[in-house]
């Protein structure tokens, strides 16, 4: 968020005020040439301001914007501790958008159902986390559970936008002979981080792809699950199932008697041919809030107090995970 905010701010403020940078030696002469080549607003300067922010973006931020967001909070690492784990504000209605819906799994929890405005407060709180942190949480969760989590389309989009912007900036500054030594060093740091973020995105998508292929048939058969997938993922699941079934048909099933050809049969003992996530698989959770008690199958009860860690069946705690009260480890 900070990235955009600051850049937007750079646009707002008139250029003389926003360039009190001490080491701006050659820039005035350069600015002329640059603004001549790139229509009007000093594009290079804006780029530069994205690597090297203004001395006090925090001040202006607060005065200029009523709804000041992440920029200030990125300084405040302690705020992470009171992050309450919501990955998304609860949206209303399932949009079928390609890259993901905005709904949160726990949207129907009863706590924040109904009016769409309550999401605003949640939103403010979750601004404490930067996108990279959020993404790593989603990734850890996706890796830790057997079930497919919700596709974090908005988050991924935001991260991609930022990555793209950084890449553009790096390319431009790289090819500019005027770029100083210090800026080259910064560019190196920027690129290092980009690689880290790209790794996260890759691993997140791969993990999901793995689950989707594993449970492809089940997913295509269960419309209830479709909102968890992005458009591309859903069509992949469908095509994958189709391909697999066609392959089975051609290679084996066609030469079997008709009653043995089904792909979605259920055996006498209740075992289905369609493999689905085993919700009995234990997960490791860390309770960020007091999650009350759960009843284990033996009739025993276990308290999920705040700050404790448990290894417990996924189906017993999925609601707390979806609410963000419990964190998957």
């Amino acid at each position: 968020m900070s990235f955009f905010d600051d850049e937007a701010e750079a646009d707002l403020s008139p250029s003389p005020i926003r360039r009190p940078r001490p080491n701006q030696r050659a820039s005035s002469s350069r600015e002329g040439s640059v603004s001549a080549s790139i229509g009007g607003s000093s594009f290079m300067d804006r780029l530069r301001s994205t690597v090297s922010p203004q001395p006090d973006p925090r001040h202006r931020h607060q005065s200029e914007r009523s709804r000041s967001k992440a920029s200030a909070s990125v300084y405040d690492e302690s705020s992470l501790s009171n992050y309450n784990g919501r990955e998304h504000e609860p949206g209303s209605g399932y949009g079928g958008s390609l890259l993901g819906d905005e709904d949160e799994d726990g949207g129907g929890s009863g706590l924040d159902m109904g009016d769409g405005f309550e999401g605003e407060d949640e939103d403010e709180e979750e601004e404490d986390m930067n996108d990279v942190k959020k993404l790593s949480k989603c990734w850890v969760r996706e890796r830790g559970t057997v079930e497919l989590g919700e596709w974090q389309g908005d988050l991924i989009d935001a991260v991609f936008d930022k990555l793209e912007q950084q890449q553009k900036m790096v390319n431009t500054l790289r090819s500019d002979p005027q770029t100083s030594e210090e800026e080259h060093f910064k560019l190196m740091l920027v690129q290092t981080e980009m690689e880290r973020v790209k790794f996260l995105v890759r691993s997140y998508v791969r993990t999901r792809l793995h689950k989707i292929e594993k449970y492809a048939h089940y997913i295509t058969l269960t419309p209830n699950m479709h909102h968890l997938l992005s458009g591309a993922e859903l069509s992949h699941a469908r095509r994958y199932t189709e391909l697999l079934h066609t392959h089975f048909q051609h290679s084996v099933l066609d030469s079997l008697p008709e009653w043995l050809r089904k792909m979605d049969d259920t055996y006498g003992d209740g075992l289905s041919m369609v493999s689905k996530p085993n919700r009995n698989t234990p997960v490791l959770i860390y309770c960020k809030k007091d999650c009350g008690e759960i009843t284990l199958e033996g009739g025993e009860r276990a308290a999920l107090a705040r700050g404790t860690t448990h290894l417990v069946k996924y189906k017993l705690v999925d609601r707390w995970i979806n609410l963000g009260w419990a964190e998957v480890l």
Partner: protein
Amino acid sequence: MALPKHLQNGLTPDELTFLAEEETIDIVPLFSMTRVRLLSGIYGPFQPPSAAQVPLWLALSLKRKRKCRIVPPDWLGIDRLQTLLKEERENAESFCSLPRRFIETSKVLLDVAPDDLMQPSTLRSLLKDLREVRQAKIRIGLQSEGVMRGSYLQVTNLTPLELTELKPFLVKAMGIMQSLEPRKDEDEEEEDEIGRVAGGDYVE
């Protein structure tokens, strides 16, 4: 296929280290530079005598270029670790609360920046002791009766890395225990499932 087999059991120690590197640490820079804006936030300015807070990966990368001195976190000191070790030894029933990623953090710090730590070799052996005491406790805990009986285990204060070591074994053991149990409420479960999978719209 999309995910290699060794990654399917959950996070690997390398990936946990990756996560640990996202956490912040104080450094004293040995060079000056204005603020730098990264995706995860704005860091700096870097002015030699004053400390700055940066993510661990950034600190390590600067350290490798000899551009900074890392200020070790306050728990990574001999006195502190000795107290922790003592507590850990005396407290046979449960585990002490330690920083979540202390193993990963201390390892990379000892590897990359031993010269910024006080007596790195002593620290290393203290950390090793601490880890071994905890591992021994885990082993004893698993042997004790009834732990593997249910499919639930409270593992408070164990760090994610220690849990990662345990998880494949526990998950497998629990799976076997489950398959040995008689299936009873299968149908009921099925209905439950359909409502739950939807996620967004189950009624509580």
